[in-house]
């Protein structure tokens, strides 16, 4: 009780004083700002306010613009009525016609190959070496860091492998690379990566994640895949925040030929998902794919909202069997913090790693797997439906070094 009490008192004091002083000063700042806007040329002059020198932030001075001095410019009057809105576009036309593509599982290598050319030479030389020097060890560690595995994880991996190597008397590059890969593979082993669908239940798969990781697209692909496997999925457009998110999911639903339940923009996501569950139960669908709005994990209120979505989704007849955290492969060390916070809030059961077909390697999922024990279940290797594949640890580890 003691330390926390002290901390609370300190926090309150700092915030109140800080906040108060800040608010009080802001008023003044604003006047200054106005002055600054008026006399745009005199930006650098530091107005004397009550004998105090106020400093203009350096960035501002460079950017606030003088109006165009070009006298030749005649500004057209604003024609607000003649809105140049395009005719309603039938987006379906633009998109690839929904051709039934046979789902062929692309291999990591095939997809990643094109991005890897820059790196192939990087460690390739190492394998041929007969003795690994101090610099080479560092290079190995750096290779891991560059794949976003993270400093701490990379260092501990290399340390372990070094110990193993000296014990086994392995010195040459090929043997050491083998040890490292085996070590990494071992960390990823023994996890259940299957997606749970319980018989006779209205399963709910909840897709969560920060903004822009590809939740909606993933749901579209998963829906299509499930439908092709003979399941009856139903999509619930729980992203009521982002403009046109429901439209986007609707197009995916049409493509995949699955049902969709959507609410109004700005509505309560829990309600939409609850309706989805009810509709699925009534129509005999076996799994609800619930979309949620992207949210940054440090927004406490939004995480609270998500926890509520999960609670509501679990109400009869709903049965939450998967909570999938969608993670962008380009994400760096922040991925760990995302995984932690989302797991705390909604008890994540697995990770979907998207956009791995770019040049990013998604090494952070290695740290997430080994530290948090969260299994990566699906991987996105391209834009096509069939490009969302099951995660293969061996391929992933190999790809980190290629």
């Amino acid at each position, binding site marked *: *009780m003691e*330390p926390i009490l*002290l*901390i*609370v*008192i300190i*926090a*309150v*004091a700092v915030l*109140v004083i*800080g*906040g*108060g*002083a*800040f*608010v009080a*000063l*802001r008023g*003044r*700042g604003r006047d*200054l700002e106005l002055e600054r806007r008026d006399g745009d040329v005199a930006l650098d002059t530091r107005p004397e306010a*009550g004998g105090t020198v106020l*400093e203009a932030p350096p*960035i501002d001075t*460079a950017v606030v*613009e003088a109006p*165009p001095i070009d006298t030749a410019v005649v500004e*057209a009057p604003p*024609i*607000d009525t003649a809105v*140049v*809105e*395009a005719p309603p*576009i039938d*987006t379906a036309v*633009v*998109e690839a016609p929904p051709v039934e593509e046979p789902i062929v599982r692309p291999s990591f290598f095939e997809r990643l190959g094109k991005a890897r050319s820059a790196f192939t030479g990087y460690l390739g030389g190492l394998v041929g070496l007969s003795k690994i020097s101090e610099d080479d060890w560092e290079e190995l560690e750096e290779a891991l*860091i*560059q794949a*976003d595995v993270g400093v701490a994880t990379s260092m501990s991996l290399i340390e372990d492998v070094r110990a193993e190597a000296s014990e086994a008397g392995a010195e040459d590059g090929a043997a050491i690379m083998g040890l490292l890969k085996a070590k990494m593979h071992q960390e990823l082993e023994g996890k259940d990566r299957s997606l749970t669908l319980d018989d006779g239940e209205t399963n709910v798969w909840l897709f969560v994640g920060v*903004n*822009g*990781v*590809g939740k909606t697209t993933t749901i579209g692909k998963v829906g299509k895949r499930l439908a092709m496997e003979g399941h009856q999925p139903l999509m619930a457009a729980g992203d009521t*925040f982002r*403009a*046109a*998110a429901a*439209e*986007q999911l609707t*197009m995916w639903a049409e493509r995949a030929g699955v049902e969709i339940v959507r609410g109004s923009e700005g509505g309560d996501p829990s309600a939409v998902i609850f309706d989805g569950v009810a509709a699925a139960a009534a129509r005999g669908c076996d799994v609800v794919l619930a979309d949620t709005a992207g949210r*940054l*994990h*440090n927004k*406490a209120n939004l995480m609270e909202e998500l926890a509520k979505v999960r609670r509501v989704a679990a109400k009869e007849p709903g049965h939450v069997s998967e909570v999938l955290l969608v993670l962008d492969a*380009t*994400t760096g060390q922040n*991925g760990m913090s995302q995984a932690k916070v989302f797991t705390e809030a909604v008890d994540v059961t697995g990770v979907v790693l998207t*956009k791995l077909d770019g040049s990013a*390697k998604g090494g952070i999922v290695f740290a997430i797997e080994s530290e948090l024990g969260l299994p990566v279940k699906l991987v996105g290797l391209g834009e096509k439906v069939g490009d969302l594949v099951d995660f293969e640890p061996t391929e992933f580890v190999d790809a980190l070094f290629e």
Partner: protein
Amino acid sequence: MFESLTDKFEGIFSRLGKKGRLTEADVDEALREIRVALLEADVNLTVVKGLRSRIKERAVGEGIHKALNPAQQVIKIVNEELTNSLGGETIKITYASRPPTVVLMAGLQGSGKTTSSAKLARWFKSQGRNPLMVGADLQRPAAVEQLQTLGRSIDVPVYSEPTNPVDVARHAVEEARSSGRDIVIVDTAGRLAIDEALMEEVRHISEAVEPDYTFLVVDAMTGQDAVNVAEAFDQKLALDGVILTKLDGDARGGAALSVKEVVGRPIAFAATGEKLEDFDLFHPERMASRILGMGDMLTLIEKAEQTYEQEEAEEAAARMLEGQFTLEDFLDQMQQLKKMGPLQNLVGMLPGLPKEMRDVDIDDRELGRIEAIIRSMTMAERTDPRIIDASRRTRIARGSGTNPTQVSGLISQFAEMQKMMKRLGGLGTKKAKGGGRKNKKRGKGGGRTTAKGGGRVTQKGGKRPQKSNGRVTPKGTKSNKAPLMLPGLDRLEIDDLERLADDFDARS
């Protein structure tokens, strides 16, 4: 929780004793920590190496500043070096002499191009311009609808047609010309830097519209790959700047630095929230301390701002400074505090909090106990805790499920805070009347007995000499020792707040 660099440095340099000069070995040890900190912040490895050598060059042999300890000094160098790298050249938007000014937005999928397009349009509008947005992302389902919805909310028209991205962009510029729109913002589809066909396509769009500005939209959470992406886009499109998105997350945003180093172009804008207004010109200074993982007071204040009502905050601060702050107010503030997210996160942002305190594992439920104690008091007791005698204390303890010692613990801590605040307030208001706000900063440093408080002032003075006159001595030294320190405040000068306020204001 990040272990602050400052702590690590202080560990390293505490062994140095009173050497007059930083040796190469000292600096090397510190640099290792810097490397880790930067890498953990997702700064690209190659960029880290470059920075390291620059920092080393500056740090080795630099005479030890009287007022700064070596740790602070290296931090200062690192911070300046980062700020220079991030800031350097700032962007200057000049409008085309023959309108429209065309802006092309490019980037990976999910980096936030569409939202940023709308935010940028809103920004141009606030500058008195007449933007037109162009939906050239015909790839992602409903991307154009998304742009249209955003367009409606900021009252900016959207042009699109179901043809191909190049034609859409070209026709949009014609349209803008004939309808008198002076800014055209072209939103393109997200693409991977390694996708040759799509990279060619965006180059064709660029050739067709000859943009005045080409911005790469980069997610602040991007990892090591950021440089490859930036390089690829820069080669195809010759970027003019970068728009950094999702800065309201807790990513430390090293990608910003990497991209800046590679492209050599400024980070022009930053998006700091979900609302369309949460977008403004980029501030490098703030980014530097964020990347280093040091307390981010501005973020803290921003967070507070989001939850606090302005008048409420002002009132509470005034009452606190006058010593009128009651347990009832305290309870109120605690409620606000809870709204701002887990306490652990907040504590991490308080600058200068001692390490022992930062490392305390905080369970937010503990707050409930404090709350229960206060709620078990009568109004009269909350207003004046001095009336609480043994019998009242027992009652309160029973009511809140605690014991009398905890109750008196809370009351005495609170009383200390009140005293402290009153003294602070007394100084502050007196001075304020005398000579304007610059004097206010003297008000603290009261409880701190080490030399650091003084050092900080000089450090700042050094950076901004015009403000340093006569303000170097912390007044608090002679004041009676207060048992309750406010570590958060002792390094945070009112001066900092002034700067933050100015800074913040410049952005709104």
